[in-house]
Every structure is written in C-alpha cells, then in structure tokens.
C-alpha cells in the first residue's frame, strides 16, 4: 500500500557493520523531527503528502503511481494540482537564495492527474466492515475526506449536502476558470464510488433535525464549512450594491449572473477577494480594485495570483481601512482611513492602526465585501458559542455530545482546501477509534538502504518552468465559454520540471568511524553542505539541532553532511575513498496497523 515511487532496493553490502535490515519503521520523535527539518516540503503540507516520492514517480513516467501517492493522503490531486495554496513550495529547498526557485510542486501534481492512464486503477485498501454507520453533514473537502477514510476503514457512510451538487466550497467557492467542473466531479465520484450514499438538497437542522440523525447513526460528523459571509461592521453595509463576497461567488457558480457596473471595489485580502475581482472583470467591470489594510506582501495568496490579477487589470489599494460605505439610495463608494502598519501577529497577520483624520473616499458602482466567512449556526444538541455555532475540541473533534463530531472549516474557521482535507481525515481516524476502540493506521518514518540516484548535476540549474496561462489576456474573456486560465504542462514540460526536485527524502550520512578526514567530499561538494564539525547538538527529541563548525583543524572531530543544506547530488558518495558515506531513503508514511483484507 505504501507506494513510494521506487522499486524496493536490495540492502547494501550485508557485511557492513552498520548493516540494517532493508526496511525499518521508526516512530522515534527524533525521526519525525528529522523529517520536519530535512524534507521541508512534505512537512509543510497539512496532509503530509509524500512529495519527493510522487515527483520521482512522475519523472519515471509512472503518472498513475504519482497520482496515487497523492490521492492516498490528499484525495483530490487533480483539484489540488490547480487550486492548492502550496505551503510546500514556500519551503522547497530549491527555493533557497542561491539555489534558484522552488520546484513547481503543485503543477507537477496536476500533471500526474492530467496524464494518468485511462482506466487508472485506484489502490484503495478496504478493511473488514465494522457494521457501524456514520453520517457526515456537508460534502466539502473535509466531509468527503472523512467519508472516504471511514468507508475504507469499513464503515457505512452517508453524506447530507444542503446544495444540489456535492463539493461544497470546491464547487461553489472556486470559480470555474480556476477549476474546471469535470475535473472536480470525477474526483468526487471516485470518493463516492466506495459505497458512500449521498443525499443532496437536505439542510440539516431544517429538513432533518440533528437529534434524528443522532438516533439513526452511531456517529455524526458536522463538516458544513463556513458559509456565513462576515461583515465589515461599518455603516452603510446594507446599501444596495454592497455584496457579500461568498454569496456573490456562489451565485455565479450556481449560474445566477448579476450586473455590477463598471467600477468595483473589493475589500479583503484572501483568495475570495481575488476570485470576486477576477469574476467582476468577467462580468464586464472595467475598473476593479482590491482594498487592503496592510500591503501586498501580506496578501494571503500566491505571487502568481497577484501577477495574473494585475495582468487582467486589477488594482491593489494598500494601507486603506474601510471606515464606512457611502451612498444614499445605493452604494456610491467607500470612505477609507489611511493606516500605519504595526508588527505582525504571531499568526503572521498584519496589524494596522488607522490614522485619525486621514479619511478619503473612492467611488464605486458595486462594493464586494470579501473579508472572510464564518460557520453558520445549527440547531440541535451540543455546546454552542454565542452565535449558535456548534463547538468541539480541536484535537479529538468531539463536541460536548457523545457521538457528535465537528471538523473542517466549521471547526477551525476558514482555512485552505488542503487543511480541510487533513482535518477531515483526522476526524475520521478519531471516529473510527471511538467506535471500534482500535487504531487502524499509524504514521511512521520508513528508512531504507539505498544508492544514489541517476540525477545529473546539470539538472540543478534547470530554471523553474512556470505554469503556462492563456495569453493575450483578452482571450480569457470569451462570452458564455469558460476558459481555464492555467493551460497546464505538457507531459514533456512536467517531466522536465520533475527533474528539478532534489529528492530531499534521501538521507546522506558519513560514518565517522570510517572517515579519514581527507575532505575529498568537501572538495567536490556543490555548496557548503559538508562541514568540518566540532560537535553535534541534539534537541530534546534526539534529532540534530545544530552542527558546531570549526576551522581549527585540531577541533575537527567529524566531517558531517548537513542534510538541511544537502542538495542530494551524490558527488560525495562517488568520490569517497573509504566508502564511508551511506544513503538511505527516509519517508514519512501512513501504514496500516492490522492485516488488511482486500475487498
């Protein structure tokens, strides 16, 4: 089940005194810490996607396998390959200052989906049916993720969806020029095919009461996301022409188009704000601005998103805090206060202070408020907050009522798709444990002896291949035809980009007992990745915290490969006179704890 992109390796020479069995599984905290530090992309992913493995698989043209390595943990590779927020790329080692730009991890994922063979086989293991029934409220990313895992673990799962099609935010919150519907539907179908029953158009708490559900099922999981558009909380917000961002986007997704005039102001700093603005252009607006209280650097969207938006002609007005929305019969504009930036909060959000008496007004035909969303109140049991929103423990997902669980954005407030998926899966694991008293899977670090790869040094200087987009811009605005702005990699481009991955899940290690300190490896190293070290400092878990380097030959106790600097080029292994450098492949994997029974 643990597909990792490589055929199993034979152990390296077994008379080696440090010879280990070919595959080891470790749950030592030190190893988890090692993974967190040295495989930055995987640990940056909320769902812990095994990124090096799937990129390697794609490099080997095993598109299906590559897709599966993704799907096993994040379920919707084709979807995420387009709209993921890509926390991994911010951490990619290739993005370090002198190493160029991060690998285009997300779009390689999309390529795996685009090019996976027809009749691609899904490797879904099935556990014996447990006879227990679970109900999930909401078919968004969190709900679907939970449903998928519970079904696999042998539960009988039913999903209730208030809208008429499943997908939640994926379908109603993300415009189709970003995420073509056929891609989405196919991946949702792939979840439902596990025998999950889906009931659409049912609004829990209205059509069916939560109590009844609790009666019919062994457990109920609320994953109904955040559908309440937040308000600016300033005067004039109820004037005609002031639209809540989310509803506006959902209406369009559902097919209702409304006229918004020429001049549109959007407030908000997230993807929704950008969706609203770019949709506005597609509805004929000519002058669209996004108004933010901080500045561009603080926007919670990718650089590419900002660039594309600007290309389409959208302006960004920074350091502007809405004071009130002006207008008599309908909206006429926003009155702003100029702000001064303060320190960022620990959460990385920019705090600002408005400047007294710095008011200024910008005119607008329509104002779209996209300052965030919140969960909706729900009738029924369980402890609520003052707004009537069901509360639950963030770790074990349990509400105050036994058998009633909460997950996804409903639990955490608005986050990203990938976070929601991760949250849904964790909730499923918890429910399964509560209902059966047993753990089905565990996360472990898999360590395998290995040899250096076929990566060529020249691959390290291949420039990052950006996602091709539809140009010139005017071609994006064809009437009643949806144009996906990002046109996707060709398989050749994907293959080329996949070469750029350093494969950080390889671990290089000098056996100090064998080393003769000849520094041949340092002499051949691509950067300062091999160090003359006086001391190795461990943290409380026993993982390397720091290497104390020294230039005094007398103090050199060891020559050490700093895996957080290493780009896995393999030069050192090739040149070592005494073969004291070993390579192992270490991967953070989820593995079954019990004998699985194929369905």
């Amino acid at each position, binding site marked *: 089940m643990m597909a990792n992109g490589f055929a199993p390796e034979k152990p390296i020479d077994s008379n080696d005194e440090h010879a280990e069995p070919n595959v080891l599984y470790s749950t030592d905290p030190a190893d988890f810490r090692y993974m967190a530090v040295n495989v930055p992309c995987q640990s940056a992913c909320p769902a812990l996607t095994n990124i090096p493995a799937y990129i390697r698989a794609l490099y080997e043209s095993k598109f299906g396998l590559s897709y599966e390595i993704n799907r096993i943990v994040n379920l919707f590779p084709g979807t995420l390959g387009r709209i993921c927020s890509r926390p991994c790329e911010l951490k990619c080692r290739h993005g370090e*200052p*002198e190493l160029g730009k991060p690998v285009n991890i997300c779009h390689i994922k999309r390529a795996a989906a685009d090019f996976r063979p027809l009749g691609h086989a899904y490797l879904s293991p099935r556990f014996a049916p447990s006879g227990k029934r679970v109900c999930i409220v909401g078919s968004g990313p969190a709900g679907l993720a939970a449903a998928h895992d519970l079904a696999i673990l042998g539960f009988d799962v039913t999903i209730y969806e208030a809208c008429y099609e499943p997908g939640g935010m994926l379908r109603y919150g993300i415009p189709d020029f970003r995420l073509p519907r056929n891609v989405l539907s196919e991946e949702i179908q792939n979840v439902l095919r596990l025998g999950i029953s889906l009931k659409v158009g049912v609004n829990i708490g209205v059509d069916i009461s939560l109590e009844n559900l609790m009666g019919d099922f062994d457990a109920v999981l609320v994953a109904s996301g955040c559908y309440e558009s937040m308000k600016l909380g300033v005067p004039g917000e109820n004037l005609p022409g002031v639209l809540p961002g989310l509803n506006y986007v959902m209406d369009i997704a559902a097919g209702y188009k409304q006229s918004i005039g020429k001049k549109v102001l959007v407030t908000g700093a997230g993807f929704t704000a950008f969706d609203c603005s770019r949709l506005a252009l597609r509805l004929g607006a000519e002058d669209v601005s996004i108004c933010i209280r901080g*500045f561009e*650097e603080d926007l919670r969207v990718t650089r590419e998103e900002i660039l594309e938006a600007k*290309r389409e002609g959208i302006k960004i007005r*920074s350091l502007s805090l809405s004071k009130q929305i002006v207008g008599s019969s309908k909206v006429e504009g926003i009155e702003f206060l*100029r702000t001064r930036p303060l320190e960022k909060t620990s959460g990385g959000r920019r705090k600002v202070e408005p400047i*007294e008496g*710095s008011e200024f007004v910008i005119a607008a035909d329509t104002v779209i408020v996209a300052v965030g969303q919140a969960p909706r109140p729900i009738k029924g049991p369980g402890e609520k907050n003052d707004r009537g929103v069901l509360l639950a423990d963030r770790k074990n997902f349990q509400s105050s009522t036994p058998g009633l669980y909460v997950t996804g954005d409903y639990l955490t407030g608005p986050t990203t798709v990938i976070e929601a998926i991760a949250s849904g899966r964790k909730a499923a694991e918890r429910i399964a444990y509560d209902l059966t008293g047993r753990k089905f899977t565990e996360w472990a670090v898999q360590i395998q002896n290995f040899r250096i790869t076929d990566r060529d040094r020249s691959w390290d200087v291949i420039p990052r291949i950006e996602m091709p987009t539809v140009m*010139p811009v005017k071609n994006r605005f064809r009437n009643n035809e949806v144009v996906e702005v990002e046109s996707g990699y060709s398989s050749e481009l994907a293959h080329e980009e996949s070469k750029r991955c350093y494969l950080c899940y390889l671990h290089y290690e000098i056996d100090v007992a064998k080393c003769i300190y000849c520094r041949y490896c340092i002499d051949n190293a691509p950067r300062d990745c091999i160090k003359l070290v006086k001391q190795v400092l461990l943290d409380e878990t026993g993982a390397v915290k720091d290497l104390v380097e020294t230039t005094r030959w007398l103090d050199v106790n060891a020559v050490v490969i700093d895996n957080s600097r290493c780009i896995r080029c393999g030069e050192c292994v090739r040149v070592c006179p005494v073969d004291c450098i070993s390579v192992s492949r270490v991967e953070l994997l989820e593995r079954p704890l019990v004998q699985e029974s194929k369905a």
Partner: protein
Amino acid sequence: MSVKRFVIIGNGPAANHAAEALREKSSESKITMFSKDPFRSYRAHLLPDFIAGLIEEEDLYNRPYAHYNEMDITLRLGQRVVNVDFSKRNVILDHKEVVPFDGLIIATGGKPRIPELFQLFGDIMMTLKTPSDARLWIQKLSYVDSVLIIGGDLTSLSLTKALLKLGKRVKFILNEDAFWPVPLNEEIYRAVTGRLEQRGIEIVHCRRIRRITQLEENLLEVETDSELIEVGALGAFFGLVPDVGFLARTGLDIDRGVLVNEFLKTRFSNVYAAGDCAQVYHPVLRDYWISIGHENAIALGRIAASNLAGSHLEVQVEPENILEVGGVKVNTSWWTEF
C-alpha cells in the same frame, strides 16, 4: 570594534549626498556605497540630450572616481544587494558576499514602471533611466526612423524632443495607465496632446493596448482598441517605481516604497530610507508621500544621513507640491516646470 560601518545602497543623488553628509558628520566611520549599476553618479535629466548627441557620455557623470577616494568612501559599482538581514545586521550581495553594517541608508531610487499587463513585452519595450538605456536607444535609433511612445512622464516628453531633433517620426499614446505621476484628466490630456501635436507628433487616441507583436528585428505591430500601428521602436514611460523589490520579506515595511516616518527612519534602528525609494509618512498630511526628482532626493539624502549620525531633522513638505496618484501622494518638486 569602534569604527562605525555605514552602508548606503544606491548611487543616485540621494545616496551620494547622504554619503557626503555622513562623512561630514563622522570623519572616522567606514562608508560603503553599493550600486547595482556599473556607472558612477550621473545626471539622469541629461540622458535625452546625450541621445540627441548634444553632449558626450562623459558629460553625464558629475563625480570623478577620485572624489570618492578623497572622501574616503568605498564605492562599489556593479554589485547588487539582494537581501538584508536586519537581525544579524548584514547586507548580502548577489555574489554571496556578506557585509556587516552598524547603520544603513536605503537610497536605491526608482526604476522604470512597467504595468503588469505589459510585462510580457518587457524586452520589446525600451525605457530610459540609466546611461546604458541611453546607449541602447542610440543603437536602436541608428536602425529605425519611427518610434511609438507610450507615456506621459517628463522623461518621455524630453526624449520626444530629442527624437524630433534626430528627425524621427514620433507617435504618442497618452493613456491613463501611462500618464504619471499626476492623474490624467480631460483638461491635462487636451493640454499635453495639443502641445505635442503642435510639435508635429502624431497622437494615437485609445483606451487600452491589446497586443504588441514583433514582426522583425526593427518592426513592431501594436494593436490598440482604436487602430493598428507599425513602428520601429517602442518606448514605455510609465514613470518610476521605487526599486525595493529585493527588500521584500526582510521584515521591512514595503508598500509602494520603503515606509519611513517623518525622520526617514524605518522600523529598524539605524536603518533609514531616502530619495525616490522612500514612502514617507507625514503627520502634516496624515498620509504617505513618495518624492520625485533631483532636488527632493538631495534633501532627503542629507536628512537621512544627519539623522543616522545623530541629529533629529524632520522632512519638510510644501503641500502645494503634493499630488495624489493611485492612492499615494507624490511630492513632485520638479513637476512644477511642466
């Protein structure tokens, strides 16, 4: 170590006057200037004359190398600062050199502004900021006899004069995106286009540019919403934007420029910004403003230096010089001559 190490990023009027002021204030300190451009301090406003062949390249430069030796200022040209580590107080250069500082003045000035929509055509569009831009123009003009200028800033106007002197055919697009730094209203539009037409320049009236295609080495086709134009070269003059991209994610407050207070001080101690790259908050205006032009740059440069050396000078503003552009107030001491 007792000797203070001051680093100045930039080599424009602000940077040079800052350096000189700093030297006056502290004779002992080590002063290093970095400029990503390979040429020494020059008079930007003379570039069109240079193109027109009225002056020699040498006349552009206003400080001999010897000057820096006399002032004991280390001038390091053609060396790009790519990052600043404000916690370790290091400046990091493109070639991976790490230079420590006790005090820092950011005076990188502006760089030609190219709206994102046009960035695809970046290499087709010619700009004019540095002597090397000028050399490129001179090269180009030896092949082409017609030039389309999308612009509205002063440089574009004085370049247009130069082009006419050289007997080139000039077409001019004056649209809102291009006109800068004052917002383009009907009356200014008529004023400027009128003036230009008298000089025999063909004005192209249009709202937006749809497409630019390079037909051959020296032949471009520009599609506007009103017509199809063929020209030899294309000049883009959307004014300047502060050249501070390299400071992103250093923890410095960057909006249009480096945000500083009325004393030109940034969030970090002993770190100042001056000249076109600074976005100064001013309590009198209750707003930010970016200053444009030689005179301002010099003034700001000297103030930043003095404050770094311990004084407490405040930036002076003449509200009548302040214009609002796309949400930012701009102080345009020289715009008056328009």
